[in-house]
């Protein structure tokens, strides 16, 4: 059991008013400080490799086909059930590719689990943050809206590998 001792207040504190004045002086001082507001549409946030934006699908080097093999691991890992995948046989050497790959952006919580779950490095968190449209349906992104050339995601991919490498090294030494 935790016994919380009530703090013995001093007379000034019990009088209340001096404390009020102190509080007021604090807020008054703050008024004249430099403001931290960013004027958003004009001033945008600087994104870095760490920025975890919306998930995107990586295109292979041919800039046509997805790296995804529709294994469904990201679908399973998604805590918000935002990902829906229907796979199909393909002529390509990887045998399977997604017929349908949809992420419901209204559900997505940008957690990045899909990124971690993906065994084929086919899905990555981009630096795209803005999300707006006129209908709910339009915000369920299909493959066309999700696919990005590798170059667009290169910064994140490098960062991701770097992290993984560091992790691998550490685990091998120990």
């Amino acid at each position, binding site marked *: 059991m935790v016994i919380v001792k009530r703090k013995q207040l001093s007379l000034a504190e019990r009088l209340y*008013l001096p404390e*009020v004045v102190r*509080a*007021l002086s*604090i*807020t*008054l001082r*703050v*008024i004249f*400080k*430099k*403001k*931290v*507001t960013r004027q958003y549409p004009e001033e945008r946030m600087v994104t870095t490799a760490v920025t975890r934006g919306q998930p995107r699908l990586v295109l292979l080097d041919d800039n046509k086909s997805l790296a995804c093999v529709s294994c469904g691991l990201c679908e399973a890992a998604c805590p918000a059930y935002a990902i829906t995948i229907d796979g199909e046989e393909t002529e390509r050497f990887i045998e399977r590719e997604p017929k349908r790959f949809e992420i419901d952006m209204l559900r997505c919580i940008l957690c990045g689990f899909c990124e971690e779950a993906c065994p084929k490095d086919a899905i990555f968190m981009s630096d795209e943050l803005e999300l707006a449209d006129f209908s709910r349906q339009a915000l369920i992104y299909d493959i066309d809206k999700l696919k990005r050339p590798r170059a667009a995601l290169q910064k994140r991919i490098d960062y991701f590998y770097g992290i993984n490498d560091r992790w691998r090294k550490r685990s091998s030494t120990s």
Partner: protein
Amino acid sequence: MTPVLVMLLKTLLIFGGVITLAAGMTLAERKVSAWIQWRIGPNRVGPWGTLQPLADGVKFVFKEELIPDGANPLLFRLAPMLAAGPAMMAIAVIPFAGEITLLGQPTTLSIADFPLSALYVVAVSGLGVYGVILGGWSSNSKYSLLGGLRASAQMVSYELALILALLSVVVMSGSLDLRKIVEAQAGGLLQWNLWRQPLAFLLFLLATFAETNRHPFDFAECEPELVGGFHTEYSSMKFALFFIGEYVAMIVMASMTATLFLGGPEVPYWPAAPWFVQLATFLLKTGFFLFLFLWVRWTLPRFRFDQLMGLGWKVMLPLALLNVFVTGLVISLF
């Protein structure tokens, strides 16, 4: 005919000014809150956001009117007017400045001069609570009802301290006429009642916070507990009226504080100041208290309801009584 015209003109001027001021207050509230939170506040509509109130007004006008199911439609519509009306009426006797000449007619810058004006202000502004109570009751919502209930208890409790604090000032100057009270403080800074009645000033100030339902005594709205309190169910112009009522009440109370304790439109050490200087002085003094309302709101946490009642009945009332008693004793002995 001219006196009537002058009267109309004064009324228009003062009400227009006060409404503008109230509108400005909505902006000021947002600005000050922003500054205190290291922000800038509204700055899109007009230069530095000065036209924001106008935009808000337009938005209020065009919003849809909602009346909750099971609410009493008559009272629901009546309540905002009852909230705004008394506050506007109370403005009538506030002396904004001394003598001016309008349309060639010498007059004073207040809608009416009335020998019992101090009493009038207290009496009329106290009625604002009906809007809150009825709004709370007629909404057919628990939150609103609780808000109204709290407001009624709170207002009655603090009105006592308010009147008693006012009374000690009245005892000092021997009149219930606000102009006489102002005159009694003419001369210099040291003539202000602020120095002669510091306790009354403090009590009056605190009571005005409670009377206007402002932080830290805003139990009628009290967002974390009651969503929006009495105006939870209100929208569009009715909501706007509540807001105008609240801000006008703040203006009234601030100008009362300025009048009673800081000499109102009297300019220190310049007895014969022209009317616009007096008006400016008055606005300055009032403005300080208006700012104080905002300042306090964004600084202090809210009380608990029992603390509020305890403060009102166990601290402020006895202190105010004591103050009146001592004042009377001192006045009658010296």
